[in-house]
């Protein structure tokens, strides 16, 4: 493989607004694991930073030694339930009863993950609804990441906390490559639910640790999760739990634990006095500070804890931080808050009273476990038959990169996602992102740019590559859709794309325009598919 050399890149006036310098792309070949322990040759486009010499080496070089067990290259479908026997698709009466085909599999993968890679939806549909849902909610063992590891613009490997924004790329990469997509999606949901921002947390690694806490506890007991979050170092810094001490309590966490995490505002679930008393119960946590380590050595100190009696929700006792969590979770208005909030991440309209009551019964009956409620939501008719939702920006980006088969290879996603309204680990405030306001003229422009950048590897280069001079409008549209991994497009959208393709062809008058205009037409089609509702909605 030719090594790109650092040389000044010739300016190209036509596209001087490109963020990245132009590149010479050609086909190279490399060895990749074939999934059976051997290697096979794969073709890929290599981006040279300067014009390569004719006849330069394009791979693949000598074949590596056989491996005992090689991982497949493309992100595979979520691990199918272990054991040879498929799970029978026996659905409870309240579940969705319609057919579970490709369209339904796509919706499930989009809402409970980050969309399918090409071909995955068909395979997923063959599991049946129950089998498919359980493959998401009951993964076995640690998650595996398949495909090329994330890299920065210079091709260097990156770690989550080695530079600004790499935490964002690190998580985005997990979304793209994991074989346990629901774990990542739940971690994202919990990052929004218990929204903590690196803005008031001294070390990025503490944010990463918190996200791992979400991964490991996303299906279990809500109380266990709540308690772990309450004394998580990132949260202790973010809502000042480490500065809350006997005699001069800090109410920050005491308020948000009720308002945002477990009970909800404006429901008459608690009073200002409850908040103040809970803040007293939460006293005692502290940390040390050094300029090198930031806040560290988080610990509970009895002498900083207010050991007196507190009355929270009418119950009096010498409550501590675990009691504060327990009292919230045992509060009669908590189960309804929990199921409605969890539901809202998967289904846009609130559940009917009947559905909500059933979810509450499931939640309380299971000892306030997350997984049973989650499974009920994921098989609900409302999820499959109800209206669509707007994908959060990172979900749209991860879905697009999965569809395009593109790994993380640029830092541009940091500021583009930020501009689109969602930089991971930097939620706007403790209430998380507002799912009802993802789209306005500013964030829509960022999604447009996201699409422009996502297409970087596959977009035809109008002026430097030969393009078909005979491609018809129908062929152009079919090609563009296939490049996006063949998503289902609405008829009226496909019709508009065809109209665009035909209008563009009418503009060709000189013979030199035949190829370049068709290349631009292809780029226009690719761009519009990316910003169409078909890709923005889930």
């Amino acid at each position: 493989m030719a090594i790109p050399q650092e040389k000044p890149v010739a300016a190209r006036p036509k596209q001087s607004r490109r963020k990245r310098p132009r590149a010479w792309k050609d086909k190279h070949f490399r060895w990749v694991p074939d999934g059976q322990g051997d290697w096979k040759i794969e073709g890929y486009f290599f981006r040279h930073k300067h014009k390569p010499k004719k006849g330069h080496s394009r791979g693949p070089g000598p074949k590596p030694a056989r491996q005992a067990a090689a991982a497949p290259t493309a992100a595979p479908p979520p691990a199918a339930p272990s054991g040879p026997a498929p799970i029978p698709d026996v659905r409870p009466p309240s579940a969705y009863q319609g057919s579970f085909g490709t369209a339904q599999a796509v919706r499930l993968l989009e809402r409970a993950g980050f969309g399918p890679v090409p071909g995955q939806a068909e395979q997923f549909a063959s599991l049946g609804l129950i089998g498919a849902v359980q493959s998401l909610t009951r993964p076995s063992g640690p998650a595996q990441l398949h495909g090329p590891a994330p890299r920065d613009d210079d091709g260097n490997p990156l770690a989550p906390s080695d530079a600004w924004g790499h935490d964002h790329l690190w998580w985005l990469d997990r979304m793209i490559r994991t074989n346990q997509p629901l774990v990542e999606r739940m971690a994202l949901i919990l990052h929004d639910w218990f929204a903590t921002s690196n803005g008031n947390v001294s070390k990025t690694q503490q944010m990463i640790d918190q996200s791992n806490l979400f991964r490991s506890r996303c299906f279990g007991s809500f109380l266990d999760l709540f308690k772990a979050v309450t004394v998580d170092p990132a949260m202790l810094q973010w809502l000042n739990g480490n500065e809350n001490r006997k005699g001069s309590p800090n109410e920050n966490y005491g308020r948000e634990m009720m308002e945002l995490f477990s009970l909800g505002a404006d429901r008459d679930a608690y009073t200002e006095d409850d908040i103040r008393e809970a803040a007293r119960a939460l006293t005692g946590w502290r940390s040390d500070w050094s300029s090198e380590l930031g806040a560290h050595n988080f610990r509970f100190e009895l002498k900083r804890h207010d050991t007196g009696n507190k009355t929270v929700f009418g119950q009096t006792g010498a409550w501590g931080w675990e009691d504060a969590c327990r009292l919230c979770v045992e509060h009669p208005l908590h189960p309804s808050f929990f199921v409605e909030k969890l539901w809202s991440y998967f289904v846009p309209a609130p559940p009917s009273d009947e559905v909500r009551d059933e979810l509450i019964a499931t939640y309380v009956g299971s000892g306030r476990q997350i997984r049973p409620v989650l499974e009920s939501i994921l098989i609900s008719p409302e999820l499959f038959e109800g209206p669509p939702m707007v994908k959060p920006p990172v979900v749209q980006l991860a879905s697009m990169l999965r569809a395009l088969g593109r790994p993380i290879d640029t830092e541009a996603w940091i500021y583009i996602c930020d501009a689109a309204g969602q930089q991971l680990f930097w939620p706007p405030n403790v209430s998380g992102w507002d799912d009802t306001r993802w789209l306005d003229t500013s964030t829509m422009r960022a999604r447009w740019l996201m699409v422009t950048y996502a297409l970087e590897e596959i977009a035809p280069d109008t002026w430097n590559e030969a393009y078909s001079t005979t491609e018809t409008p129908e062929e152009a549209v079919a090609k563009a859709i296939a490049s996006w991994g063949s998503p289902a497009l609405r008829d009226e959208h496909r019709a508009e794309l065809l109209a665009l393709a035909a209008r563009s062809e009418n503009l060709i008058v000189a013979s030199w325009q035949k190829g370049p205009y068709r290349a631009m037409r292809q780029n226009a089609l690719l761009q519009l598919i990316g910003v169409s509702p078909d890709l923005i909605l889930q």
Partner: protein
Amino acid sequence: MSPGPQNHSCCSGYTRSQLLRSAAAEAGKGLPAIEPGMPEPAGTGLSRRKFLSRSAGLALAVYGASKIPLSAFETGIAQAAPTDKILISIFFDGGIDSLNVLAPVNDARYQQLRPNLKLAPGAGTAFSEDPSLQWHPAAAALATLHGEGKVSAFPAIGYDHPDQSHFTSRHYYEIGELQVGHRTGWLGRYLDAVGDNENPLQGLSLDGSLSPMIATAEKPVAAIDSVDGYDLWSRVDNPIQSEMFRSFANLGALPADSPAMSQVRRAASQTDKLRQDLDGVGDFSSPVAYPDNRFAHKLAGLAAYIAFGLPMRVVTIRAPGGYDTHADQAGDLEDNLRETCEGILAFQRDLEARGLADRVMIEMWSEFGRRPEENGSLGTDHGAAGCAFVIGSQAKGQMVGEFPGLTKLDPQNNLQATSDFRGMYCSLLEQWLGFDAEAIIPGASGFARPVLVKP
């Protein structure tokens, strides 16, 4: 809660983020190119270039094709009579500590409640309308404008039965009503009443996302992330590019069968309109010097936009930093307050230099004030009544509601309100925007109207 990313000015990461942002803005800048033979806009008798460069010396350029429909932009320009009033809302996000902005420094109770966070007597300018109060030294720029009679201060604004949740209280201020769950902002309802169907610039948020305050039911409004330009970069040049945007707009105009679909359609449609309206507007110069920060730069751009004649009616901006100062309040508050006030002073001087100051009024607010008694973390918890300011050459410059003092607090030990934010809204609507508040603010007849605008 804690403040959002903007306040994190101490870490190198934030600086990097800003650089990346400005890189994005650079990347989004258009290449000016005027096509030969470009038609003159209908009705103006001027070519686009002449028309635009005449208005303010701004080099507004339009990309390539003559096929970009001019209608939206021209309609907007035509509508914006130069005498139209503009209201700018500046939001202190997180609940600013009003007792440090206008501090009762000589009050013994204040010194007792604020052993660490009190301001020292004499540290800042005395507040001439109430000698018991003193401006925070970082608010010196605001004190200067107050001295010129251009600031009406509300030292204790709020509402009955104050809610201490950021989100609930902020929502009240945004919608102009003590309710939850409403979808339109008080200024959005005003725009719905007087606005235009084709002009998204009439309600403009400069923070990258739309302020709920200007959320409308019907009329288009806009948000931009940078005053340095707005375009949609792609790998498509003209003539195919105009066809692409035509289809983009067509997709936005299709009927929607769900709320989410309607959101995408609406966003696409407004994005395309704004792209046409702001194409090339990114280059501007200022007649006065501004501080070197992002907030001031936004205000500089905004002043240029006003001078340029962009048809804006209401504009929203977040003040720099976060004000939810539960811990280590003093330094954060000082830095952020200074940046805000100095930016506003430069903006006012800019408008005065351009002869536009009589068209612009600023309303500066926060969702609540903070607890008079400081907490144990060198910070303050959520309180009730807070401060607000109405600023402009046409502002009456007279305090609204007295400072209630700290001896009689509310049952939660918070400051009691002596003015209601809905009264301020009613006055701004009626006296500044010339619109009947009854149609916008529920129960408007029940609120006293302070005089906020010079007769």
